[in-house]
């Protein structure tokens, strides 16, 4: 009688193909990803049918939290001629001189190190008088302080006597990057990013502030509407 030979099956699976697929996916994600920027408040923008995309360069976005706090974000040009860091460093210097001209009694003086710290921050929004102190904080404390702060803003229709928010916009307008100035004039350089629950009175105040500075064109950031018509 012949012995029945049971064929031993190999239990190991060849993972090479699997590995190929994962590497491919990984490459795809690495190349297409733009990292989520850290924002002081989470904002859920209202939906709209508009298909125009937000430009990813030369943009000043005004972040409005539901409580009515105002924050600013600024990005540089697409190529590396005016990096975000360069634009931001220039912005804070512009802002400093604008602020000190308006408040000669208690001027703000920032060190080189503070300017460098500022240039690396994506979003900002503390009163100028507390800027130096804020920049000296360690990172986690700085984020916490930012959440509770916000750029001072009020109803102001006098273009010769700007409030702090308007000074920031003016400083951005006069920055080293001529492309930013161009997009701001066209209305694509300023975007208002407000939460659904932000009271309209806050958004309207920001719009009025911009209008006072003769910036009548700007864009409102929205999310894609989920339901199709």
């Amino acid at each position, binding site marked *: 009688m012949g012995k029945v030979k049971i064929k031993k099956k190999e239990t190991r699976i060849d993972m090479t193909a699997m590995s190929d697929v994962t590497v491919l996916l990984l490459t795809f994600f690495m190349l297409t990803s733009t*990292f989520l920027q850290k924002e002081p408040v989470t904002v859920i923008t209202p939906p*709209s049918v508009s298909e125009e*995309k937000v430009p990813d360069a030369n943009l000043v976005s005004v972040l409005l939290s539901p409580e009515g706090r105002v924050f600013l974000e600024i990005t540089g040009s697409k190529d590396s001629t005016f990096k975000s860091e360069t634009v931001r460093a220039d912005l804070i210097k512009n802002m400093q001189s604008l602020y000190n001209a308006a408040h000669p009694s208690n001027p703000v003086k920032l060190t080189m190190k503070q300017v460098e710290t500022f240039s690396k921050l994506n979003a900002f929004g503390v009163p100028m008088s507390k800027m130096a102190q804020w920049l000296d904080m360690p990172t986690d404390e700085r984020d916490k302080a930012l959440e509770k702060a916000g750029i001072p803003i009020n109803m102001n229709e006098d273009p010769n006597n700007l409030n702090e928010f308007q000074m920031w916009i003016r400083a951005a307008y006069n920055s080293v990057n001529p492309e930013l100035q161009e997009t701001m004039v066209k209305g694509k350089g300023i975007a208002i990013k407000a939460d659904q629950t932000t009271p309209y009175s806050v*958004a309207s105040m920001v*719009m009025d502030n911009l209008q006072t500075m003769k910036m009548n064109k700007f864009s409102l950031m929205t999310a894609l509407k989920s339901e199709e018509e």
Partner: protein
Amino acid sequence: MAKTKSRQKKFDTRIDFTPMVDMNMLLITFFMLCTTMIKSQTLQIALPTNEKVEKEQQNKVKQSEAVTIIIDGKVDENGLSKPDDGTLYYFDGMPPSGEELKNLATSNPMKQIEFGNKTGGALPAVREILRERNKAVVEKIEVLKKDWKDQKFSKNEETNDSIYLAKAKEIRNDSTLKRPVVIIKATPNASYAHVVSILDEMQINNISRYQIDRINAVDSAMMVLLQGEALKK
């Protein structure tokens, strides 16, 4: 003689890829969670200048063309406005003035639409109203849209799109057609989402002339009167 033939040990050339796959999966998960795939959309807005305009130039809007929409929201106990609750008010023509103001209580031109406690609750009604006012343009655009879908302008998809967009813009700005001028106003209680959804309706209904304005005393008077009437009933 001793055996000199040394047996070369045969190495297994297959490498186990399992840890590699594990690591890759982990990295993919990381990248997937950290990326923003969907970019935000924008609505372009142009506000009128703040400078004082001559009186004659100001009242150019024809009575029959104007529609005023007023958005009123509700605020919760924390002072945050609720995006899914509120009331819309609208009236046709110019705001009442002079003699008409005295008879406001009996002949209030304003009507209201409730939001009905859900997002976009009032929007179908608003869309209906705006579509009715902008009928001439909407009908023409619909014909154009059909041609665009059938690729009548060009077989090339891109040229087809650009011709369609140019023609649509022409129709929207055609002054021979009867087109409404929509004036959007919002009370301080309105939320940002309300205003954006109304602005969005302008896009949906192909309305080219609209503006955002501040609420005035006549508007609030009409709103108060209307609310009073509703309470009586």
